[in-house]
């Protein structure tokens, strides 16, 4: 295939994916609003666009499916048939099929989907569809008095549109008729963006390959590092030759470079930001399907979908959120009868909210269900040996709710098809901590549960405290560090083998950073610096030899090492080219707890 063709197909895939993504929430809205003409028209148009482009490129199976679905949409729009939930379901199925077909084209795996059963289902659905009642459309009644006669009627109407009986050959020509410039493939591009840009308003956009942006991002990172080096050298020169005019000039130039580099870094970062709508738009459909299969009524409210987050967040946040939403609907929300008994409205509520708070993006998923049964969680955790009897007594409710994030925990005895897929909430936590974020749970019995996910705005740069322990420099994200203290060895107490430190009357476990990192037999000087770190409701102290100051560091990914088990988030390169590891505070928290148990 020529390169030009590949490009056209890639464009088609991107656009088709976008169209389909837009369709899903529209359907859910449609179900809520009833036979809304505008919505129907919009869906129809998207389908039609896909069909047209697919026909032009010769993807026959897509044309077949899109065409049949489109026919139904057209009849719905023109008020010829009555909308029903079975009709919607079968169209949603076609949307799924289209997604699958387009995916095959995208990855070019040469696989085929069997569209025949779906095509038949679509035909059946259309045949069974009820004509609109006589009052609404009296003219139609004569044409479609009974179901048996509907078939011929349909065919009579078809010639005006496209006859499903006249298959492929005509289909393609119809599709090409949509695009007048078949012979010049490049020319049909301009009108496509025009269609898609209608709802987005006057913002001008340019589609850029993400690899190019990432490349710019990496290069920017390089410049940042060079700048840091230059800053060091300029400072050194100024100390040494403070009276030299050239050195003053260098200082000024470097200061300006410093400023520009920071701005550039921010600008590149913003290039990668996308509205979280991209993720959220999948949820109405998800919630609809879930509520259907569980027989629960759910009202979904989404706010803040324009909140912008880094592209990597868009890609990684979807799965954990799906998991949380599944949990909320499956376990959180009660059945309709149960809700009625409790005096709640029969329709359960799920709210999804996103907003920015300082340097954090907050995403909340709340339900108004039964709340997490703390006692049940405790006994389950005890039963599974995740906590001890003694801990059950001491543990706060909030901490107990967090037990559900432990690996190997699941409150439902019988794994359901929906939530119990062998992956627990621990996966949610792991995925989110990979984004340097954390999850909190707020739960109230019979009032509901809220999962609050906090993720840093940018993933590439973090504020970190530079420390030295055992002769090695480390960076620790500043976020969870509450305070730093200077103490002497004698301030550290020892309770049954666990080092502790009393701060303002409260006692916290303390570990040497070198112990946490597994470097034993390190001699420690008498003067210790202590970082007080809070992860969730857990607070602990980490002792280091030296505090080197606060710095903005660029996180460099480490490929090829399982960063989960090593407890490092990544690494950064200092001005002089040295590698400094960035430690993961939440992994430290786990280590401190496990060290305490030994």
């Amino acid at each position, binding site marked *: 295939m020529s390169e030009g063709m590949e490009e056209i197909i890639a464009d088609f895939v991107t656009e088709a994916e976008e169209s389909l993504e837009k369709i899903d929430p529209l359907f859910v809205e449609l179900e809520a609003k009833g036979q809304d003409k505008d919505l129907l028209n919009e869906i129809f148009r998207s389908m039609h666009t896909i069909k047209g482009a697919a026909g032009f490129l010769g993807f026959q199976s897509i044309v077949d499916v899109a065409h049949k679905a489109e026919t139904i949409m057209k009849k719905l729009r023109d008020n010829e048939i009555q909308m029903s939930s079975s009709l919607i379901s079968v169209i949603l199925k076609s949307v799924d099929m289209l997604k699958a077909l387009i995916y095959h084209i995208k990855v070019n795996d040469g696989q085929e989907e069997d569209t025949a059963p779906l095509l038949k289902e679509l035909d059946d659905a259309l045949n069974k569809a009820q004509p609109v009642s006589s009052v609404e459309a009296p003219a139609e009644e004569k044409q479609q008095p009974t179901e048996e006669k509907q078939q011929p009627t349909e065919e009579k109407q078809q010639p005006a549109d496209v006859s499903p009986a006249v298959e492929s050959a005509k289909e393609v020509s119809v599709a090409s008729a949509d695009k007048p410039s078949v012979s010049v493939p490049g020319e049909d591009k301009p009108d496509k963006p025009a269609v898609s840009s209608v709802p987005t308003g006057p913002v001008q956009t340019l589609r850029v390959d993400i690899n190019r942006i*990432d490349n710019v991002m*990496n290069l920017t*990172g*390089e410049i940042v*590092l060079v700048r840091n080096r230059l800053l060091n050298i300029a400072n050194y020169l100024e100390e040494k030759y403070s009276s030299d005019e050239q050195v003053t000039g260098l200082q000024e130039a470097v200061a300006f470079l410093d400023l520009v580099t920071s701005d550039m870094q921010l600008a590149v970062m913003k290039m990668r930001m996308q509205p979280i709508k991209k993720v959220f738009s999948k949820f109405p459909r998800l919630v609809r399907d879930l509520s259907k299969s569980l027989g629960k009524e759910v009202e979904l409210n989404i706010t803040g979908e324009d909140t912008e987050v880094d*592209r*990597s967040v868009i*890609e*990684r946040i979807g799965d954990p959120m799906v998991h949380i939403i599944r949990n909320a609907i499956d376990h959180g929300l009660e059945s309709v009868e149960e809700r009625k008994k409790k005096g709640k409205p029969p329709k359960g509520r799920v709210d999804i909210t996103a907003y920015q708070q300082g340097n954090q993006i907050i995403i909340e998923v709340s339900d108004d269900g039964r709340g997490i049964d703390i006692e049940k969680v405790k006994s389950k955790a005890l039963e599974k040996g995740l906590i001890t009897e003694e801990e059950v007594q001491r543990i706060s409710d909030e901490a107990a709710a967090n037990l559900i994030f432990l690996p190997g925990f699941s409150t439902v005895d019988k794994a359901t098809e929906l939530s119990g897929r062998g992956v627990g909430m621990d996966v949610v936590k792991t995925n989110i901590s*990979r*984004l340097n974020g954390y999850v909190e749970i707020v739960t109230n019995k019979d009032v509901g549960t809220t999962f609050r996910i906090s993720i840093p705005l940018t*993933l590439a740069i973090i504020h970190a405290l530079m420390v030295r322990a055992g002769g*090695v420099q480390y960076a620790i994200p500043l976020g969870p560090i509450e305070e730093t203290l200077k103490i002497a060895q004698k301030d550290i107490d020892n309770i049954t083998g666990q080092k502790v430190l009393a701060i303002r009357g409260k006692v916290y476990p303390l570990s040497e950073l070198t112990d946490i*990192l*597994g*470097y034993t037999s390190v001699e420690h000087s008498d003067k210790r610096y202590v970082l007080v770190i809070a992860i969730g409701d857990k607070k602990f102290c980490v002792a280091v030899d030296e505090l080197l100051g606060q710095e903005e560091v660029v*996180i*460099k*990914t*480490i*490929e*090829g*090492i*399982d*960063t*989960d*088990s*090593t*407890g*490092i988030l*990544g*690494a950064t*390169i200092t001005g002089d*080219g*040295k*590698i*400094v*590891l960035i430690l993961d505070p939440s992994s430290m928290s786990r280590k401190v707890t496990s060290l305490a148990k030994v």
Partner: protein
Amino acid sequence: METLAAADNILQLVTFSLGNEEYAVDILKVQEINRMTEIAKVPNAPHYVEGLINLRGRVIPVISLRKRFGLKEKDSDERSRIMIMDIQGITIGLVVDSVSEVLRIPAATVEPTPPIASDISTEFIKGIAKLDDRLIILIDMDRLIEKSETTAMVEATKAIEE
């Protein structure tokens, strides 16, 4: 393994030594060969992970092949090299005693691994090339990192990269 399958072809290999034995890898997997540089230790990593190096602004893990193969450890000297390899899309450095040459051999000279062939466990060996009086052990790069490890890594990498 593709290289073995194409029997008519000439294999292009980079050979290196560990202890007394000569090893080789497919030249296409080798990105570059560097002298030893400062290696930052990584806590709690598998024992064969030497640490991280700064490769022109990229942070790359370095594996000691001696440790990976269960051979006796040896301090690095001026002949030690870090071979930067591409293993399933991940860039990794391998510490070897020394890098010898680029070799072109007919694929036919490569024989399947005999049961007990060398000091290292046979799981990493693709085959053995016989050349006059030399025996060269061909390493299967993709097996160097355990499968589950690679998958986890690939995922983690994607997570951070993207």
